[in-house]
């Protein structure tokens, strides 16, 4: 659900007069699965692009952490149409020579100038400290991939952590926000490792994104304290799966949270709906003066409430209300309800739900468009 909603938002791209949707993917060393999520979303978006379902007509991938050859191979293996890769993919190679050392060595004749640029889709970035240059090369490649038409392109950055190692938070944030507000960018997403940076860096990145996908460990490993033989199974478990929670920020400022469980598999990752987790839902509730949470007693009472039809089948004849009721039934019903009421009074721990709908005109109590998530 959550991963699909992300893919849809990135596919639909920017609305007229709005900034492009941006996604932050963050993980930590205890559940280092961010790269898998990044690859999954990249593959989804690229399949949407190659079948021209998305607003973006091409992707500019900024590769810091993995070689461009690796990324191209990855997309080739996942794309249904590998031949069209060159049409819609451009890679800014910040991996091979981020500080220009190899160029310097080749120029001074120490090593042979054996260029690694065998992939025609990659363009080499020789100084990652210069973010202005990086910005202009991203935009330039983007314009190339959409062939000077009026279309838009998507931008994917595979490690903002690497950018932050070379540049300040403010310049990295300004790069991202410039990209986001560029009128030819359809959407952008990036990955970063939250435990490598201060809190303020991750907040800054989350502010300029409209979606935040966070991979967290499912089981807490003894306050992250080392690898003991006792918690090895837990650590191993966290390497294979994690909790995937996503925060969507709507245009009107409303926040929607979704959560899923993420499993790694031979061919990428798989999302399964997560079970209700009390601990996480509690920590998300803001501190207010009135009660938003139930106490233990209230929760027990709520569990005792017999839902309509739930009591049926335990010995009594099963009754299914079909909108009419026979005379004989209504007679016995009257007796029974009286007896039932007596019973309810005796057992105060048992609750019941009485709901009477006023009329058919009554609208659902929300201003939300019910077809908001409709996938057409």
């Amino acid at each position, binding site marked *: 659900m959550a991963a699909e909603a992300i893919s849809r938002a990135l596919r639909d791209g920017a609305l007229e007069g709005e900034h492009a949707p941006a996604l932050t993917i963050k993980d930590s060393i205890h559940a280092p699965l961010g790269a898998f999520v990044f690859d999954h979303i990249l593959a989804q978006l690229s399949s949407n692009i190659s079948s021209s379902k998305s607003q973006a007509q091409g992707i500019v991938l900024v590769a810091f952490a993995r070689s461009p050859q690796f990324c191209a191979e990855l997309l080739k293996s996942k794309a249904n149409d590998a031949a069209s890769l060159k049409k819609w993919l451009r890679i800014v190679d910040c991996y091979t020579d981020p500080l220009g050392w190899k160029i310097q060595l080749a120029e001074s004749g*120490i090593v042979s100038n054996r260029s690694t640029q065998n992939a025609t889709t990659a363009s080499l970035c020789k100084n990652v400290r210069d973010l202005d240059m990086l910005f202009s090369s991203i935009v330039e490649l983007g314009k190339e991939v959409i062939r000077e038409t009026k279309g838009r392109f998507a931008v994917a950055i595979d490690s903002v952590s690497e950018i932050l190692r070379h540049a300040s938070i403010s310049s990295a944030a300004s790069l991202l926000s410039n990209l986001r507000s560029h009128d030819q960018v359809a959407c952008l997403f990036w990955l970063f490792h939250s435990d490598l940076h201060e809190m303020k860096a991750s907040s800054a990145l989350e502010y300029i994104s409209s979606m935040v996908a966070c991979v967290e460990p499912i089981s807490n490993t003894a306050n992250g304290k080392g690898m003991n033989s006792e918690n090895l199974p837990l650590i191993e478990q966290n390497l294979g799966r994690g909790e995937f929670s996503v925060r969507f920020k709507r245009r009107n400022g409303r926040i929607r949270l979704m959560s899923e469980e993420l499993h790694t598999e031979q061919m990428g990752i798989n999302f399964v709906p997560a079970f209700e987790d009390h601990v996480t839902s509690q920590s998300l509730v803001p501190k207010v003066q009135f009660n938003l949470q139930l106490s233990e007693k209230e929760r027990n009472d709520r569990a005792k409430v017999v839902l309509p039809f739930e009591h049926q089948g335990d010995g009594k004849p099963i009754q299914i209300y079909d909108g009419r009721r026979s005379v004989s039934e209504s007679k016995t019903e009257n007796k029974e309800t009286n007896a039932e009421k007596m019973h309810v009074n005796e057992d105060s721990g048992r609750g019941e739900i009485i709901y009477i709908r006023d009329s058919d005109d009554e609208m659902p109590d929300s201003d939300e468009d019910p077809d908001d998530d409709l996938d057409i």
Partner: protein
Amino acid sequence: MMSSNSANNLLDEALGFNDDGGGGGGGLLLLIEDRVETSGAFILHHLIKRRISSPNRPNDVVVFLSFAHPFSHYDRILRKMGCNLGVQKENKRFVYYDMLNLNYPEGEQGAEDLLLSVYGKIQKTVELCSSREGYKNSTIMIDDISLMEVALCGSSNLVLDFLHYCYSLATQFDCLVIILNHEDVYSTVDVPSPLLQMEYLANIVIKAEPLATGLATDVHGQLTVLNKGICQGSGCSKSKIRNFHFRVKENCVEYFYPGSRT
């Protein structure tokens, strides 16, 4: 009984190394983390021997950057293990760079230039070696990262840049990069920790720790090997964790599972 002299021991198994001393594919970074109570240097010695003395790979080379000890130190230890480093050095299969006696310039730019020249030498060696017939993969070893950081006036960023270049060289020429670092020297530093960066970068992390119950005569410590698995275009192998005890003997190391010794 398994010892490091046998073809494959628990450590090699956990690392995914095969019988002829090779790694599981190229472009790997192996990080050894040890503590002051439990030195992880013996893993480094074991790996030097494994990579160098395999008869199936006569053209593979080990590039060794030493910040910690002089050549004679390694020579003495490896000789006891049955491997003559001096001869290998003459054969150019063991390329030793003494980083202790370099003149480290002041300032960031000077340090970067120095690292650049060191990297240039490594790349030249690896390129030369890869052009030979029968080349499988080379190894780049650094002993150890924390002293490298000290030599570079504490600039962990430069160390990480250097590692990135070594790693990108490794992906290009199918090399194995092996680095040793100390876990406890970072224990008081707040995030962002350079050690964490290296853990993200590494494909295999080996932790050498003392036993939780303290020192014992028969067991010198435990190793935890975290093998993240390799991702290639078509799919990923699953990550695995292994934990076992070790005992360092005069000329070999024994590895065994907890409780398997009487």
